[in-house]
């Protein structure tokens, strides 16, 4: 059984937002709803500045607060690590939205169920990568199987210092980040 994960190499992200449009087209995400975004953070005072570009999406946590807080069992975690929503069971109560510390979910305005990134699991079944990964112009998003020590994600996590978002929340995300600030002299 694979253990899917994404590594985001922030050094390679240029904030072009191709991932967002590809995701929305692939998954038919409704207008004004998003399954992924690119956060831009700036520190410092002119002219001593540093900037971070951080693509964000559902972290497919190993300890998923959305699943833990779902009263109907609609949110669930698969053995391969992917967190999904069973739309038939979802009543749109928003407990998961309140529980998720990453703001990764939204309520589908036409159908009323909670929705979010699926790691494009249908594409994975065909042996393909998520849409955001396929189109990423900077190749900042890398997807793969952490159970395979030779996969690119495994090699990257061995080779570089990485971190996860809000590690203190205890959610054990499956989205990992490699960060290096551009440091002006």
């Amino acid at each position, binding site marked *: 059984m694979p253990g899917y994960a994404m590594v985001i190499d922030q050094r390679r992200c240029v904030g*072009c937002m*191709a991932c*967002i449009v590809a995701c929305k087209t692939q998954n038919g995400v409704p207008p004004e709803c998003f399954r992924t975004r690119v956060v831009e953070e700036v520190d410092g005072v*002119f002219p001593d500045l540093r*900037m971070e570009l951080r693509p964000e999406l559902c972290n497919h946590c190993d300890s998923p607060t959305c699943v833990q807080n779902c009263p109907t069992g609609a949110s669930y975690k698969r053995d391969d690590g992917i967190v999904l929503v069973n739309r038939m069971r979802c009543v749109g109560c928003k407990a998961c939205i309140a529980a998720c510390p990453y703001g990764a979910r939204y309520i589908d305005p036409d159908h009323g169920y909670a929705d979010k990134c699926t790691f494009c699991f249908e594409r994975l079944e065909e042996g*393909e990568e998520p849409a955001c990964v396929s189109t990423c*112009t900077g190749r900042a998003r890398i997807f793969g199987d952490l159970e395979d020590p030779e996969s690119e994600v495994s090699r990257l996590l061995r080779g570089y210092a990485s971190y996860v978002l809000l590690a203190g929340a205890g959610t054990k995300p499956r989205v990992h980040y490699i960060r290096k600030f551009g440091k002006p002299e």
Partner: protein
Amino acid sequence: MELTRRHFLRLSMAAGITAAGVAGGDLLGLLAASGVRIDRDARYIPSYCEMCFWKCGLVAKVADGRVVTLYGNPLHPNSRGRLCARGNAGVGLLYDEDRLKYPLISCGGRGEGRYKRASWDEALGYVAEKMDRIKTRYGPESLAFFAHGSVTAHFVPLILGFGTPNFAFPSFAQCRGPRIAAFELTFGEDPGTPERVDLAGSRVIALFGSHLGENMHNSQVQDFVEGLSKGARLIVADPRFSTAAGKAKWWLPVKPGTDTALMLAWMNVLINEDLYDRAYVERYASGFDSLRSHVGQYTPEWAASETEVPARLIVRTARELGRNRPNVCVHPGRHSSWHGNDVQRERCLAILNAILGTWGRRGGLYLKTRSSLPVPPQKEEFPEPQKPPLSGKYLSAGAEGVTNAIRDATRTGKPYPVKGWLVAGTNLLKAMPNERETAEAIRGLDLLVAIDVMPFDTAMMADVILPECTYLERHDEVYVQRDRMLTASIRQPAVPPMYQSRPGWWIARQLSVRMGLGSYYPWGTLEEKIRSECAFWKVDYGELRSKGVVSFSGTDNPYITAENQPVFGTPSGKIELYSRELEKKGFDPIPVYSRVKQPAEGWFRLIYGRSPVHTFTKTTNNERLWELFRENEAWINKGAADRLGIEGGQYIRLENQDGQRSDRVRAKVTERIRPDCIYMVHGFGSRDKSLSRAYKKGADDQGLITRYAVDPVCGSTGMRCNFVKPVLET
């Protein structure tokens, strides 16, 4: 003109294909391997993109007669299987309900927006009759053609056959003109589009105002990131802390208008410290001794006082470039019409690349393929124009013409009257500085025809609007790209044209037939023409159709070797550090620093740039891009904003030195910009109500650009010479 003619001669004499062969394998297999789910019920049509001008290969997935998804074509050199946000959002243009759907003829005054729906026959007949009347009354040169993008080529036979030499594209005088002129003067050749920058192999990359990433030029950004990930050190000179600056080792927040001082000081350090490529310069360049003695005066300390960049940083970055020569790239830039002395600034970029020995070197600027696909012989000769083109007075006005020279003649009637404008795929009001002058020129016309996809401002001034279909619904000319390798790409329809819209080629041909110029379009359809070209080139049309691109393997030879020596198309056959051509015309043969006017206390210089999700105005009404970036913002330095009492997110207006006031625009209060300038993303503030999303969103930077400085060498319009101050809403 001299340069241009030489340039064309070289093109026509270029060698044929040296080794024909086709790279790549099965497109669908490659698509699947790159992560695309292949649906057996769908059709996959390869083509190339027109959401910007980069021309990335794409594959359109069509299901139930609709384009559902666009993918990057993995075989194509400009996309390499990836599309940017705009490329992914092409479907948003195709299915934009605000598209121009039917031919329209004005039934009110210009700009009143009152139109009646017409048949194609009626609209084309109207235009042909008016064009003929202009020709009879004033002469054929009184018709001018403005264009941008793929539609351009379709109308050229009509325009040349009509007998006018007056056609111009804003891509020269409002954009790349100074760079083209400077590199042709120095190397005998423009770095091209895509620029032949070998960023993936660079050890040091220097950017002057080029905001790669925000400037989302697909393959170039891919190479840029690849270079950085392999450890390239990045130097960014920009008054704004751009996305690229956020990745830089050195950000040089240069005072606008002083880039030339910084570059001259770099030359000073490189030469004084013997960090230039002496062997390369001796072998390939001329005029080095003059350059050496000229740049002696431009010390880093002097440059520091001009640029406000500390001298130690100027020295440090120059050494970084020099020590890593020749595997470094001083990016030639793209939009370069800034201050009116732009050819000389771009000459500095060219000279830096020359003395660092980057032209033809790994990590520098790679050499263009020497192979080409020759233009098939034309059966019909074009008539010789009776009068000189309106851009004739500039030394290197280029093949793309000078829009503002035509506009001036239209306004003044001198040296001869211009009475008709055909405008295709370009929003001149937004592309050119001083909208009043454009409007004034338009007022004096007997005929204004717009050929476009969307009802943007210039189209909605037209007497006749001819709706072109989108790039996903038509053939366009085969895109022959002479880059690292020779490639040919096809644009072909994924779906038939919607509404009453028609391909640009069809429109051009129909007009020509009505004016008795049909012999310039001897093919029934553009596809017929493409087939005959392929036969002439011995390119398998079926293969081109099914793969989208044909690459000629073995046509690349990017780096200088003993056997692969560069050819410089300058008069001396060398890289001209000292330009005799400039000298002959009375210009500085080596760039001399000249100051530009700086803003007075309380004023800010207006600068402008790009968002990665927009191509000027073109994409602003696209649902999928609009929701990511709906309106532009006015970037203002935090300290300056605090003094003026402006808060982030607040709507303000900007007023320029001539009292011109902008629409409402949100203030972006940020540390990411110098205190002496305000930055906006270009292309916003559209005026037509039929744009349900873009109407009056954000502010129009061009509306504030009432002043412009014409470069005396190439005629381009420097547009960064306007000063604004914020006006708070009460």
